């Protein structure tokens, strides 16, 4: 039973400046599903289309970003919502919420945290203000945050505390689905661990599903049930986290896993030649072929399909 189903999604940035039409194919033919109460991790380098994908899933597309094909469907306990068609305003925050990376720019710097909670969540929860604030306090306590943070201004909180407040803000309406965009990337290791523990507790208490995006595979390994790896706008491999990290099959994933630094292992790590392609003019066939050690003739001509059952991979050399 899946909460989110993305099928053959294509989202391009279409520009038409001075009569020169250009399409940056940031998300090309991506299909994935996220089950109920599951944490799905999305990994990949910057500019591989992760952020575009989650923006499309949250129906936050603005020109020049346009959805060219495919579908995004949510199933919130029997209520089916097609994210690409029409009005989705009433499901935001209530059913679908978003944890953002830059906690400093989420919270209004000149308003107390309490006011941010009222701005974001009051219209979704409703009811008289004292009752609403009691709900917020109870929620903060459940997340081991002092209710006093409500009286603080964002600049009075440390980076880790602000990020935890942002997470509390995203989960106060007990949403069915949470999208988390690099929530731990700006934090140091100690705070990162605390934030990940908090996210795990939220999943257990509220029963939400999560789409967790980060480039840090170590974070995925510790949090996610399933993992998808993106390269240059396409999903190249997907599978249960432990499977994918211990027995990667796509050459790109293999490189990512082999290149991870570890304490206790100072052996030199292999380098991948070249750089990620320009998505306005991606290579033909498999987009990884110019850098791939296993590239064959067919890789230059045809794009490989995602094959496999639970552990899917898009590569001619392995499937």
């Amino acid at each position, binding site marked *: 039973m899946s909460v989110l189903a993305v099928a053959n999604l294509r989202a391009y940035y279409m520009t038409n400046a001075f009569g020169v039409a250009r399409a940056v194919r940031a998300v090309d033919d991506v299909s994935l599903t996220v089950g109920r109460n599951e944490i799905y991790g999305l990994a990949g380098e910057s500019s591989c289309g992760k952020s575009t994908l989650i923006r499309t899933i949250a129906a936050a597309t603005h020109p020049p970003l346009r959805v060219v094909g495919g579908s995004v469907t949510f199933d919130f306990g029997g209520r089916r919502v097609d994210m690409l068609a029409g009005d989705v305003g009433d499901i935001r925050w209530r059913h679908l919420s978003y944890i953002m990376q830059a906690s400093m720019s989420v919270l209004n710097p000149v308003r107390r945290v309490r006011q941010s909670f009222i701005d974001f969540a009051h219209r979704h929860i409703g009811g008289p203000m004292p009752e609403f604030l009691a709900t917020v306090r109870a929620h903060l306590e459940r997340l081991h945050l002092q209710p006093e943070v409500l009286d603080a201004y964002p600049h009075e909180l440390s980076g880790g505390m602000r990020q935890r407040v942002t997470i509390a803000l995203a989960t106060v309406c007990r949403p069915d689905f949470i999208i988390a965009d690099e929530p731990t990337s700006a934090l140091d290791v100690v705070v990162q661990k605390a934030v*990940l523990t908090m996210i795990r507790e939220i999943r257990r208490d509220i029963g939400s599903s999560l789409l967790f995006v980060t480039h840090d595979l170590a974070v995925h390994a510790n949090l996610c049930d399933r993992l998808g790896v993106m390269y240059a706008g396409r999903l190249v491999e997907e599978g249960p986290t432990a499977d994918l990290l211990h027995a990667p099959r796509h050459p790109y994933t293999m490189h990512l896993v082999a290149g991870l630094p570890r304490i206790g292992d100072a052996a030199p790590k292999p380098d991948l030649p070249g750089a990620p392609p320009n998505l306005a003019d991606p290579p033909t066939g498999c987009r990884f072929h110019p850098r791939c050690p296993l590239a064959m003739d067919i890789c230059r001509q045809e794009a490989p399909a995602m094959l496999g059952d639970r552990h899917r991979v898009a590569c001619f050399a392995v499937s």
Partner: protein
Amino acid sequence: MTIESTNRPPLLELCDVGRVYVSGGLLNRRRVRAVHGVGFTLDAGMPEILAIIGESGSGKTTLARMILNIIPPSSGGVRFRGRPLHSHARLDLIRQVQPIFQNPFEAFNPLTRVERYLHATARRFAAGDAWHHIGAALQRVGLSAAEVRGRFPHELSGGQLQRIAIARALIPSPALLVADEPVSMVDASLRMSIVKLFAELRDRLGMSIIYITHDLATAYTISDRIVVMRQGSVVESGAARAVLDSPQHPYTRLLKSAVLSI
């Protein structure tokens, strides 16, 4: 130890360095001790990578700024080649101690072509043809002048920009690089290639590098010595592998236990 190495003054010597920030007005003055009683020495003629690790707010960046002579210490002294920083000529010190900052997108002006930074550094610090020096420095970091010429920062990836920042720092042939969280804004897959570049600079060019980070795994891979800071003070220091393999101080153990692994 040879006689020569004992006679030569150390490259960098920090002696009981402290820094206090004062904020507020006359009545509500607050003093924050950012760095307190830090001391270590980098020997001349023995290039090494010294990693400074610690959580945010532990005073790592303040320490880097004092070594770079951007802010003066409130107590103690920083000596470069045996003399206090302020007694060196400003330009001469810049030539020998070069910085690399955390976020390459903030280090470069978005409206300026990146070659201007390279060119300005080459004109000021390197004799002869500027483009010759730029080409050589870029080649060291795995880029070519053709890839960089005429480009604005937004046309380059974070990893490429950070390499250009390193190339710029190499043009004056410094004796010491101070890299403040150089890979925390760079993707995991490019992180290792930049970290490996530091080890190469140490081995090939004989540069000493102060590598400030909160990433223990990369510090383990490349650094020779490590200094662990907490709330402005050094809590543990020693050979990198030894410290991280068997940390003694509870804080170092906490840091190590917080590192996620696969």
